[in-house]
């Protein structure tokens, strides 16, 4: 297994800015889910640092040109965490933040799960699990075929990789040496019905990905320095795709949600939201 370099080349200023972004994304996600009365808080909160690092630092994207052919691609393969994607896209300027208040309304471009045809900045429709890697392979091959330098990122959930299509895609990515593909696993060990290790164990997981001929980076997904370094390291790996196995906590940042499968797919009420906001801390906006 490759370990990311421990050098401190990302500035403290960047790290604290991204930490603030992650906090904003958590708050926005919970407020959106509360307002709508539906959504997936647990898996949005577990991915906050990863999403902040991608959307406010790593991804080469331009809100003014959402269809720019050379942009990096991002697929939220765990499409049920749409709240945090929408929060990130709005804060990145792809559409007005006011739109978030209308998430899930019939006329709103923000569907329950991401829809590439309706929402600017959504590179691929998702929601039913498992598709991200195989689609990412296609995007990676298209980039190579057309001589474009963009990179494709796929964020997956851990329960998601219980499905066979993920491993079909993993085989294909390795066969075609899709080094321009980075997968990130939000390994929070909680899924709808309980703990991943009870429902359908994945371990030894690092060995599995290595056996599929992927480069594997294992990090703490809430440590922004590790997230950034892993994202950078993946770009330096040649000849094979990279997966960043990010150990995370479901519902991270809210004590009564952390590690609880009950918070996979329900909305907090007003009192719960107020407590969550207190625990996460108001943004310094």
């Amino acid at each position, binding site marked *: 297994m490759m370990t990311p370099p421990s050098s401190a080349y990302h500035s403290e200023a960047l790290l604290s800015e991204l930490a603030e972004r992650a906090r904003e994304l958590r708050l926005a996600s919970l407020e959106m889910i509360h307002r709508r009365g539906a959504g997936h808080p647990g898996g949005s909160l577990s991915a906050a640092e990863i999403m902040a690092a991608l959307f406010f630092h790593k991804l080469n994207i331009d809100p003014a040109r959402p269809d720019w052919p050379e942009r990096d691609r991002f697929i939220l393969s765990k499409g049920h965490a749409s709240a945090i994607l929408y929060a990130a896209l709005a804060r990145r300027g792809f559409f007005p933040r006011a739109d978030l208040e209308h998430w899930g309304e019939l006329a709103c471009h923000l569907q329950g799960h991401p829809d590439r045809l309706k929402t600017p900045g959504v590179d*691929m429709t998702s929601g039913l699990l498992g598709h991200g890697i*195989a689609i990412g392979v*296609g995007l990676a091959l298209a980039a190579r075929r057309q001589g474009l330098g963009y990179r494709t990122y796929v964020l997956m959930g851990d329960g998601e990789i219980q499905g066979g299509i993920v491993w079909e895609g993993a*085989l294909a990515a390795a*066969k075609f040496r899709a080094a321009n593909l980075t997968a990130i696993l939000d390994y929070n060990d909680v899924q709808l019905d309980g703990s991943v290790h009870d429902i359908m164990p994945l371990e030894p997981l690092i060995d599995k990905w290595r056996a599929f001929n992927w480069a594997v980076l294992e990090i703490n997904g809430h440590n922004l320095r590790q997230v950034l370094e892993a994202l950078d390291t993946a770009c330096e790996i040649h000849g094979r795709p990279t997966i960043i196995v990010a150990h995370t906590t479901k519902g991270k940042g809210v004590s009564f949600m952390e590690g609880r499968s009950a918070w996979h797919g329900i909305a907090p009420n007003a009192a719960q939201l107020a407590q969550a906001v207190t625990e996460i801390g108001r943004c310094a906006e």
Partner: protein
Amino acid sequence: MSALAIREGYGRALSDYGEINPRVVVLDADTAASTLSSYFAERFPDRFYNIGIAEPCMVDVAAGLALGGLTPFVNGFAALLSLRALEQIRTCVCYARTNVKLAASYAGLSDFKDGPTHHAITDIALLRALPEMTVIVPADAAEAARWVPIVAEYEGPVYLRLSRDAALPAGNEHLPLEIGRGLTLREGSDVTIAATGAMVGRSLLAADELARAGILARVLEIHTIKPLDRELICRAAAETGALVAAEEHSIIGGLGGAVAEALAAGCPAVLEQVGIPDCFARTGPDPETVMDAFGLAVSDIVAASRRALARKPRGR
């Protein structure tokens, strides 16, 4: 019997078209030597991706290639594409509206040697129910070849249903092909046979036989099951008063179902169906024998036409 197998006509055309359109890339699921996407693979190895026996993955990879601006042709056995990869087709091709072309070979009973596991007799029903999908069924090898550039240049998902085998010639070379516009292959005023795929040539033979008995059968080729040419069908309903739908597919949900929907909605008329009854077929020595044994014989079309005529209201 037309000299060329339908897959042969398609495979050669795809390879030739690759010279003209550099955006076309081709995928197969370890069936290139069967679907004959191998011709393209030999000519353009850098534009061919063999995904192995993993049709769901193949469709998703194709969706990604389409997102990247290319025009992927996905090749596989119709049974596997339409069943195993149906979720990928629904979600990542139709709902996401990626520009993926599904070339579904070995459709119907055409894989006569392997039997019901490899028969695809429900694929039209499944695929035509999907929003955004276009479903096209060529009648013979020459027609299959003509569809390749049309399908490639159409923007959106297409299911091109192909047979492993040769079919009786449809004799439509002189008629222009257009998505959603059926062809009138033979005029007639007593009854209309609306046929698709390998049943088109058989329907022309049936019309000959009916003519010898003094019955004038109109023969329509409905190559596009979706969007259906309702205007052509309703005109035939008005002018002949009785129809037969003929297809190498289950009688549930295929062309017959589509025609029944059109008639019920706008132009009620008698309809008889020629198709595979609601059952699994069997292995056989050749495609013709299997087709004949499962309701698709020329005599079945003739009998259905006579039934339709008999049911026609008096005065028509």
